[in-house]
């Protein structure tokens, strides 16, 4: 039985230029003094085979490759092998490909050396990166689903109007939300708070947000915060015993089951009031939420509201997860919470937790400017 040295790093180079690969193997193999096991692939197909068979630590990918280029391959790597550190090498280092590579999870974007002597600098950089592989899995950590309460909270906080339709397998429930207030709930033969509590006691099922239409009547009155708290209290009093679900009028195919809802994520946790950042004046607060996305640590969408490009938003959260670790490296800043981004009229917040990523973009009504420079102020 063979055993590998504990510090052995498996490094994969993907490049369609065979001569370049051979030079890499010869020189970097020598410089690494046995610290690296080098794998070579001339295309993404061969690279994927190597990735399946070996636990690769670092993949160095050429950006300009035929058929599947480096950026496409990076995206694939990011999805399939999120734990592999990724670096791109490019002979033509333009801003567009640089940001595309960074967005797709590349830790570094390096220019291909024109002089072989510069290869040693590349090697030193790669060796440092391979040695300091982050231990945290960041955004792609533990899976947990967002609960129904979370979705209701978000709808109410955003003052949305919608119908939350819940499928509990053999029955269906609906919660009507109008401009951030819960107006009506129905589940089987039940209506009102009783139906709402029943829906929120569900231990599995699936839900969908549908466009709002007026309910047959208003059966619920009161602040949504109170209603959710009351539902939680009722659920607690039942001691986690699943409620008797109303019988369905007719048999329906079973919906794919979701895990037990997680404890509610308070929206105030997601986007707490900024400290010393935005002025207290309400004129500069977001007035319109343009899009919002909540996804699991594996990048699965659990809540999407008007997201124009889900793939880009998930990639952005993945980039942020990786970059937040890198930025804090060596500074001991503590756990990363979120990134707030401010523009003249836009506010974008992206939050990364071990189990979820949240993205939201809002538009403000007015901007406060520095009277001297005219630049937006905090």
């Amino acid at each position, binding site marked *: 039985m063979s055993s590998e040295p504990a510090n052995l790093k498996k490094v994969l180079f993907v490049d369609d230029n065979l001569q370049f690969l051979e030079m890499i193997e010869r020189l970097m193999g020598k410089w690494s003094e046995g610290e690296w096991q080098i794998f070579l692939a001339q295309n993404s197909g061969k690279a994927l085979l190597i990735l399946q068979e070996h636990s690769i630590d670092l993949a160095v990918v050429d950006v300009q490759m035929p058929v599947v280029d480096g950026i496409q391959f990076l995206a694939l790597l990011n999805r399939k092998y999120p734990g592999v550190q990724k670096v791109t090498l490019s002979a033509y280092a333009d*801003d*567009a490909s*640089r*940001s*595309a590579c*960074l*967005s797709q999870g590349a830790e570094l974007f390096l220019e291909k050396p024109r002089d072989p002597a510069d290869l040693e600098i590349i090697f030193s950089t790669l060796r440092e990166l391979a040695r300091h592989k982050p231990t945290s899995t960041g955004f792609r950590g533990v899976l947990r689903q967002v609960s129904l309460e979370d979705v209701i909270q978000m709808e109410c906080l955003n003052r949305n109007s919608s119908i939350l339709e819940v499928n509990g397998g053999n029955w269906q429930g609906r919660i009507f939300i109008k401009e951030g207030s819960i107006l009506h709930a129905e589940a089987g033969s039940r209506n009102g708070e009783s139906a709402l509590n029943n829906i929120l006691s569900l231990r599995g099922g699936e839900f969908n947000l549908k466009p709002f239409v007026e309910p047959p009547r208003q059966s619920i009155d009161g602040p949504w915060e109170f209603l959710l708290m009351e539902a939680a209290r009722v659920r607690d009093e039942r001691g986690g015993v699943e409620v008797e679900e109303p019988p369905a009028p007719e048999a329906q195919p079973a919906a794919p089951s979701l895990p037990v809802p997680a404890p509610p994520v308070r929206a105030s946790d997601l986007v707490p009031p*900024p*400290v*010393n*950042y935005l*002025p207290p004046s309400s004129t500069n607060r977001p007035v319109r939420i343009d899009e919002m996305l909540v996804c699991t640590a594996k990048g699965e969408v659990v809540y999407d509201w008007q997201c124009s490009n889900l793939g*880009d938003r998930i990639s*952005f959260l993945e*980039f*942020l997860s990786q*970059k*937040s670790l*890198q*930025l*804090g*490296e*060596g*500074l*001991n*800043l*503590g*756990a*990363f*919470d*979120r*990134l*707030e*981004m*401010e*523009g*003249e*009229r*836009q506010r*974008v917040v992206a939050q990364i937790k071990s189990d979820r990523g949240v993205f939201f*973009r809002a538009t403000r009504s007015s901007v406060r400017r*520095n009277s*001297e*420079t005219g*630049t*937006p*102020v*905090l």
Partner: protein
Amino acid sequence: MKEEIHNWLTEKMRVTGMLGCGIRCPDRRTFIRSASAQFTPVALEHACRCLSDTFQVINSNRFPVQLVRWIYENYFVYGFIREDGLCLAVLTRRHEGSIQSTDLETIVAEFHSLAV
């Protein structure tokens, strides 16, 4: 240019709550000042590079933003970018001892008018 940036960063280190700051130029030259051995120039330079990467990705996502705030458990890292691509990073505490917002606004205004 180098001296102007150095002088300005040195002056900004006197701002209450400033733990470290740095400027990264579009040509990747980076200038760093740190108030504590905890925040080494190498780590701050690395942070500036991450900040610059972030603005690049933000730009490619077409988010029209000019300033960012990284929020960690104990610290804030503010980032600002000018139209010419010059990036400023400011490190301060998250809770007590943070840079006052008025001081931060002054820093931003000066950064935007910094002649380099």
